[in-house]
């Protein structure tokens, strides 16, 4: 194999590969990226056995072939090469090494046989559809903060992507929850997605996927089966196993009868929460919300370190209410709001509270209060 490729293109492909490989690995080949050159294209493939990413890009192929080298080492080298450099990758059949040349720099890397590289088995997908990158980006960006890290409830360690009944017909919906907060984000159902089975997309896949969704103009081809999900742009294909488990019935969790309505400027609110939470060093310290006629008083009382209070002008016309929340959860939810106003719907100090952006039902958050 012998190829020439522009440094920037190579860096992008190798960066994606090295982020998929696991840092601590007991199987040496899994630390490597499989480089395959044929015709006018070269592809870079990396896997952790649960996720596989393939970046296919144009290159000058002088001699076709394939080999594997350490993804992390190759990434480090390419990263340190000067911008705009032309990089030459040559497989030395005699020594079994891959040389990397750019300008006056020359590297020789150990390789492992391409035959040992585990290529993820292709499978039949139940549904194939394409969706605009910004729509998918919104689904995952707004829900991923609520993904659980609890290993005993492994089925919460991802985003539940499925077709659901929205207010105006069917929607493509992403739900994530860790039992303390929940995010439910909807987008228009793309044509062809009706038959897709609901899948739990693992946390790591959500992170890797994010890099495919940067381009506002891109259309992403999504393929879904009971066991796998695939996201593809013309260059990058990300295939992932999905979490084998049943996502809990979240619809029971979303309160429908909360009537006490608070409307507040989302930015002001988030800043105020952040400020009052400063006095507590504890990671789970509660912020108390005291609501009265058009008045919200946020307070934190940390006996060891101090107390803080801040008043906000809000729209609220229901009975007096005092309710406590974990400061971190409240901040995370408030910072999801893109528009000006956040609407909170409360029931009692012990019941889950609902938050949404204005009257937009396509992004709904639920948070469990804390006793204060």
């Amino acid at each position, binding site marked *: 194999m012998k190829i020439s490729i522009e440094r920037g293109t190579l860096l992008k492909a190798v960066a994606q590969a090295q982020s998929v490989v696991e840092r601590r690995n007991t199987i040496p080949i899994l630390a490597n990226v499989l480089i395959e050159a044929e015709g006018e294209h070269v592809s870079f493939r990396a896997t952790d056995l649960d996720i596989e990413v393939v970046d296919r890009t144009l290159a000058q192929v002088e001699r076709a072939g394939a080999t594997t080298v350490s993804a992390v080492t190759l990434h480090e080298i390419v990263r340190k090469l000067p911008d705009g450099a032309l990089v030459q990758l040559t497989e030395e059949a005699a020594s079994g090494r891959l040389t990397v040349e750019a300008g006056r720099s020359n590297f020789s890397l150990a390789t492992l046989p391409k035959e040992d590289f585990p290529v993820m088995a292709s499978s039949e997908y139940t549904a194939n559809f394409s969706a605009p990158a910004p729509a998918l980006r919104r689904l995952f960006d707004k829900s991923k903060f609520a993904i659980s890290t*609890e290993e*005993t409830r492994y089925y919460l360690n991802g985003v539940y992507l499925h077709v659901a009944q929205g207010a105006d017909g069917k929607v493509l919906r992403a739900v994530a929850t860790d*039992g303390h907060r929940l995010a439910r984000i909807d987008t228009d159902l793309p044509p062809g997605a009706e038959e897709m089975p609901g899948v739990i997309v693992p946390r790591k896949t959500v992170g890797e996927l994010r890099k495919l969704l940067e381009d506002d103009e891109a259309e992403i081809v999504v393929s879904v089966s009971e066991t796998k999900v695939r996201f593809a742009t013309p260059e990058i294909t990300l295939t992932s196993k999905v979490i084998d488990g049943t996502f809990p019935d979240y619809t029971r969790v979303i309160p429908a009868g909360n009537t006490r309505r608070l409307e507040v400027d989302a930015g002001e609110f988030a800043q105020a929460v952040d400020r009052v939470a400063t006095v507590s060093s504890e990671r789970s310290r509660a912020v108390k919300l005291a609501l009265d006629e058009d008045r919200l008083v946020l307070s934190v009382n940390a006996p060891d370190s101090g107390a803080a209070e801040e008043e906000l002008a809000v729209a609220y016309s229901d009975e007096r209410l005092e309710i406590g929340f*974990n400061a971190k959860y409240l901040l995370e939810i408030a910072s999801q709001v893109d528009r000006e106003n956040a609407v909170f719907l409360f029931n009692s100090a012990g019941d889950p509270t609902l938050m949404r952006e204005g009257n937009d039902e396509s992004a709904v958050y639920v948070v*469990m209060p*804390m*006793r204060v």
Partner: protein
Amino acid sequence: MDCDAFYASVEKRDNPELRDRPVIIGGGKRGVVSTACYIARIKGVRSAMPMFKALQLCPEAVVVRPRMAAYVEASRAIRAMMDELTPDVEPLSLDEAFMDLTGTEALHGAPPAAMLARLVKRMEDELGLTGSIGLSHNKFLAKVASDLDKPRGFSVIGKAETAAFLHDKPVSLIWGVGQASQAALEKAGIRTFADLLRWEKEDLTRRFGASGTRLWHLARGEDRRRVSARAPVKSLSNETTFFEDTADPDVLDGHIWRLAEKVAARAKAKDIAGRVVTLKLKRANFALLSRRVSLREPTQSADTLYRTARRLFDQVGDKGPYRLIGVGLSQLEDDAQADLSGDLLDPGAAARRRAEAATDAIRARFGADAIIKGRALR
């Protein structure tokens, strides 16, 4: 100071009819012996033995259900007497405590041996309970001494006679050296303290790790642990060794619940809570399985402990049989932040939490067995 057949002695004191009869504390159909009085022990009844077995050995025994409230009260009275001797009292359980009497002679005008003799006399006169005293120059030897002459014992192991005393004794004398450690030591040719003395410190450490170093010191009668009333607690755990190995998930579930309740009760009594729950299982072949998980917020709730430990148990993926099960709570802190938030996915949690608070209130007033869950009877 170690009380003699403590629970049974309290029962005999409170019900003189039992005085000359064999008494076993314990209960339930699946129950095990918690304590047996000395009369029952003559017939071979031992702690942790299943009740049916105990009754085969001693059919005339009177079985009494434990009355924890009475034992706690007696224990507090004894503790108050010990507190008069020294501020350094370290209780090991309701009926056993270390006391550091260093330097108290000037205060009391009598040597520690005399003060301890007065203590057990007072316990007999005022409380109708007997105890055994072990007096020595460190905790390890004091504990050993307290077992030498039971019941109503009084043993002293002085510095000068320590080496001679230990020489022929088996290493099983050491608290914490159970069947498994004994077998490992036996493999190395170590059965007695004399055997231990032949080993270099480095060799023991290399072979047995940190406990090897400890053994080297104990072999020489050395133990530097302080008696401390305020030793910071790092973890709380309770475990049960079964009389017969079991793989029955229902039986194990009952044990998980009872252990969770015990750990929770201790945490609540100390006003502490923990973030890490541990499940410990010992298989019939002594292989130890341990699973732990961090919680989002600290807990002291029996319900949370039980559910977490049960989830860990379900994920062990080993069918058993087991000889021991344990539940522990660690990463402890004060309970100000404990159990404050609910779980969206478990709407019943709030109701169960209220039920637990109500149960605790009832128990505080009417005793530990005034109200129990059906699950506890498994």
